[in-house]
């Protein structure tokens, strides 16, 4: 099976496993067998939930949903490389990473249910910042947080996700440059899934995103984003660098969005089914499962058990989610300020009566 076409530019792409699961690089990434199995389990749970969300949206239980199918390895591999005191700054498609971080799926999905904003879960307790929709804006937040951790003398680091599309924003640049200047312990993790809504990578930039790193004075790695081991390894390295005080890193994970941009999108308007099929064949879960089974770390029963677990889990998630009512109207007023000023209290009263 040939490598994804986007890599035909001479820039090296780190890979541990071939698309059929055969090792093509060093597969010792520093995880024990349980750790290795956990990656597969998370990917299976994530995909199952992602598909459930698509169904939930069709059934009117979510407003709009941005699926991540195809990107499980990129998210799980990177998030798994972090420690509990690290902080993730997601964009809006990182539900798989959220699961790895232990974010409660029902709390998270309130966002897509339209019952609350970016951070319905507790960002500080989970180490997972609020969902962030204005692309690339979260990158400077991550740099600020990382600088804060560094000033605290902590060895925690921040990891910020962004898309290939987000990489064109000014905030990407300011974040990368500030991170380099302050040697902030931050990992700028790009999921290059080939598309920014309808705009393909080639219409967004003229060089690999990872190739930008030297211009900032930081290491830049391109990695096969459908190879969970490669993603884990690259992220791990960046994390260690950050903890050692050596500053930021840029990682570009080449992957693909198998589904639509969001449930409101119709990708057949702008891309070929053939391209999707080519990437479907590069499925990150199949690849990794074959590897684990080949090296005897997991047997078929393990995957089956994960799938059963996923099935039961999404059932609970669905049940809890659809049981959620609308939040009380007072929520509109109660979180704007620590202490609402008189003018706002008056508006609250006008809106809610005495409530």
């Amino acid at each position, binding site marked *: 099976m040939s490598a994804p076409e986007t890599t035909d530019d001479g820039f090296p792409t780190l890979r541990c496993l071939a698309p059929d699961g055969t090792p093509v690089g060093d597969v010792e990434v520093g995880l024990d067998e349980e750790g290795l199995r956990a990656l597969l389990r998370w990917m299976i749970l994530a995909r199952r939930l992602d598909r459930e969300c698509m169904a939930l949206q069709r059934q009117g239980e979510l407003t709009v949903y941005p699926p991540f199918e195809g990107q499980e390895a990129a998210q799980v591999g990177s998030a798994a490389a972090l420690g509990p005191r690290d902080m993730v700054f997601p964009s809006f498609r990182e539900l798989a990473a959220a699961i790895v971080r232990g974010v409660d799926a029902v709390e998270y999905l309130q966002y897509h249910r339209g019952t609350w904003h970016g951070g319905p879960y507790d960002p500080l307790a989970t180490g997972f910042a609020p969902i962030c929709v204005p692309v690339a804006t979260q990158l400077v937040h991550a740099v600020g947080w990382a600088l804060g951790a560094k000033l605290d003398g902590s060895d925690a680091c921040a990891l910020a996700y962004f898309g290939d599309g987000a990489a064109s924003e*000014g905030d990407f640049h300011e974040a990368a440059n500030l991170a380099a200047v302050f040697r902030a312990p931050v990992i700028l993790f790009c999921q290059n899934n080939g598309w920014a809504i309808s705009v393909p990578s080639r*219409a967004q930039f003229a060089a690999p995103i990872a190739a930008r790193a030297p211009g900032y004075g930081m290491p830049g790695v391109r990695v096969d984003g459908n190879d969970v081991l490669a993603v884990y390894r690259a992220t791990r390295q960046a994390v260690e660098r950050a903890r050692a005080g050596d500053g930021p890193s840029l990682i570009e994970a080449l992957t693909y969005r198998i589904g639509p941009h969001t449930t409101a999108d119709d990708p057949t308007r702008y891309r070929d089914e053939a391209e999707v099929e080519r990437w479907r064949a590069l499925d990150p879960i199949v690849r990794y499962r074959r590897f684990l089974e080949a090296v005897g770390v997991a047997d078929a029963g393990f995957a089956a058990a994960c799938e059963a677990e996923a099935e039961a889990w999404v059932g609970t998630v669905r049940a809890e989610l659809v049981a959620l009512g*609308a939040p009380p*109207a007072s929520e509109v007023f109660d979180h704007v300020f620590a202490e609402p000023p008189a003018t706002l209290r008056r508006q609250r009263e006008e809106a809610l009566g005495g409530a």
Partner: protein
Amino acid sequence: MPEITMVGALNAALRDALDEDPRVLVFGEDVGELGGVFRVTQGLQAAFGRDRVFDTPISESGIAGMCVGLAMAGWRPVAEMQFDGFSYPALDQVISHVAKYRERTRGRVGMPVTIRIPSFGGIRGKEHHGESPETYYVHTAGLKVVAPADPLDAYRLLRLAIADPDPVIVLEPKSRYWSKAEGELTTEGPGIGRARVLRDGSACALISYGAMVARCLEAAEALEAEGVPCAVVDLRSLSPLDVATLGEVVRSTGRAVVVHEAPLTLGLGAEVVARVVEEAFDHLEAPIRRVTGWDVPYPPASLEQVYLPSVERIARAVREVVAY
């Protein structure tokens, strides 16, 4: 005459502008192959080619900044910001350059720039998809700002914006994109700078723009039935404001309620009140009420109707003003 949606009317306006003036360019995020996330630019790339209708990377500041350079090179750029909340990264270019370039060059370099922004709430969108950014633009000297309320006026205002020698921000009410109207698409009729009185009524003037015009008309209908005849003014042109019409209408009603989705404080309603006080003080029989969004970030989908002015809130304000 067939019915046309606002999206259809805007699409026709772009098409006709591209057709009539070879210097018109249309660009933005996803406006090409996809035809825009709301389909406003659908089919334009196929019809006019990739040089005149093209996608940009996600770079709002760059999009607005390129407008400046393209205008200097003699082009007439029509840029789309994908959503209200994503127009903010372009604010510096808009405030510091687009708005000031003609002034700065003593009139030697005009900025015939149009920036289209799908705006306002009411579509159960996520955060950053329901913003009412008009204050940022209206307060910025050197810009014109329009917000159509119906398909035919959307066609007219967008055509006039593109033809205007100065920069015009076009705030398109997303929640009315699929509303329909019947009639001729034409640039004839009220220009930029003119309001429209959509309904006469002696008890109170309802002053609004964008999607809230429909709610005001609905409220006026209900109030009429109660024996409270209301005039309804569609501002259309948020900058410059049609102060003359505002004064005239309120001098006749003596009472007014301003309605908009933007938060209360320094929402456009504040300026309307100030102008009405200046123009019609001696005729005012009650304080002017503002029925607006609250001074809070735009809420999530399931709470947006708590935020948006409802027909009931509008009607209640009118009743209070009339009873004053």
